[in-house]
């Protein structure tokens, strides 16, 4: 158990360099993400969106009837008007 082990293993150098590299990589990714919305319009001009032969993106399902049924059931339960089987 000794501070010399850290020096001998070049621990401080590895730690500082490691943190700097991790930060650099994630800062670059963060910058890229920030610029992405600005790049998209240019990309749209070069490669306009088109339909392809692959599976289509699933559209959001309309859950309104299910939500209405759940809401009605909860209301009936709360007011004690839930029909018995």
């Amino acid at each position, binding site marked *: *158990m*000794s*501070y010399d*082990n*850290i020096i001998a*293993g*070049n*621990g*401080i150098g*590895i*730690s*500082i*360099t*490691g*943190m700097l*590299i*991790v*930060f*650099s*990589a*994630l*800062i*670059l*990714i*963060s*910058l*890229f*993400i*920030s610029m*992405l*919305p600005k790049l*998209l319009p240019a*990309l749209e001009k070069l490669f306009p*969106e088109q339909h*392809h032969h*692959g*599976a*289509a*993106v699933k559209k959001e399902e309309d859950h309104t009837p299910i939500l209405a049924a759940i809401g009605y059931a909860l209301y009936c339960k709360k007011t004690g008007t839930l029909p018995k089987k």
Partner: protein
Amino acid sequence: MDIFLQFLGTTAFATMTMGNFIMIIIGIIFVTLAIRKDYEPLLLVPIGFGVIVGNIPPIPGMGLSVYDEGSVLRYIYFGVSQGIFPPLIFLGIGAMTDFSTMLSNPKLVLLGAAAQIGIFLTLLGALFLGFSPAESGAIGIIGGADGPTAIFLSSKLAPHLLGSIAIAAYSYMALVPVLQPPVMKLLTTREERLIRMPPPRFVSQREKIIFPIAAFLIASFIAPGAIVLIGMLFFGNLLKESCVTERLANTARNAMIDIVTILLGFSVGASTQAQTFLTPQSLLIFGLGALSFIVATAGGVLFAKFMNLFLKEKINPLVGAAGVSAVPDSARVVQAVGQKEDPHNFLLMHAMAPNVAGVLGSAIGAGILWSVLVN
């Protein structure tokens, strides 16, 4: 009679050691925690049962344990010892990860980087305690709070410590709800915990498709050692987001990741024979592991507070704690701690951004340590 006595000599009753008995109790505790407390059951049940199986003393001359040439368990353990299973798990994680919250608020990515301080301070701690640089790197990665990454790196740098490191990493990941809240509360004021953040913006499908390719290129150019883990993560994510490979994405995030988790958890558990596991080194690794989770949490929270010095739109510093990867448990902890102060404050979606950034950060950290310490 001789044959019967000879048989009795081969039974576990005759060959069981106190160490094996202790490990079997630990295995039972893992299974109990998973079933009764719901602590990471998908991992702790296979690992716990594996610990029980691995500590039934093998019969000399018969290939039974993970360390015996030609045994079935050894073949399963091959996926762990050669670092095959962790990238496959990353493929599944990629296929189930939605990077939208991170794409909508890119500054939160930095919190995922800050929390990786846990890796590098633990490395210093391990060196201080007398571990070799390669062993210290493998122990340090526990601070990344990512089980597959810890297994991958320790299989490359310190295979003899793999069992202890894997068990420590997964145990502390299960204990995230216990370890993190005190640190988060200690380092933040009530006013800070009450900060509300604006809802994330809408992210287009095209952004989601471009991101995995671009981010992989950036990360792998900077840290090529991370290409195996990062490559599989972003490949899985591309399968998900491209919308044309739904079947592959489904297999990767369901059947495949489940199969690999079973094999990985069970064989890691079975590798913890008392004779190799119950050593003073393991105790030190467990101590350093706990410290690394605490340091990583503190790193994320303190960096969020530091960022707030320069930001007009403040970040709730609790979100920084999700920078330790432990997906999605640490994000859930952020949500729970935040809602204790304000039941109407929903931090989960914001916490998912540093959470997935933490996965990237720990994989990049592993790549760096691997390339620096491999020789």
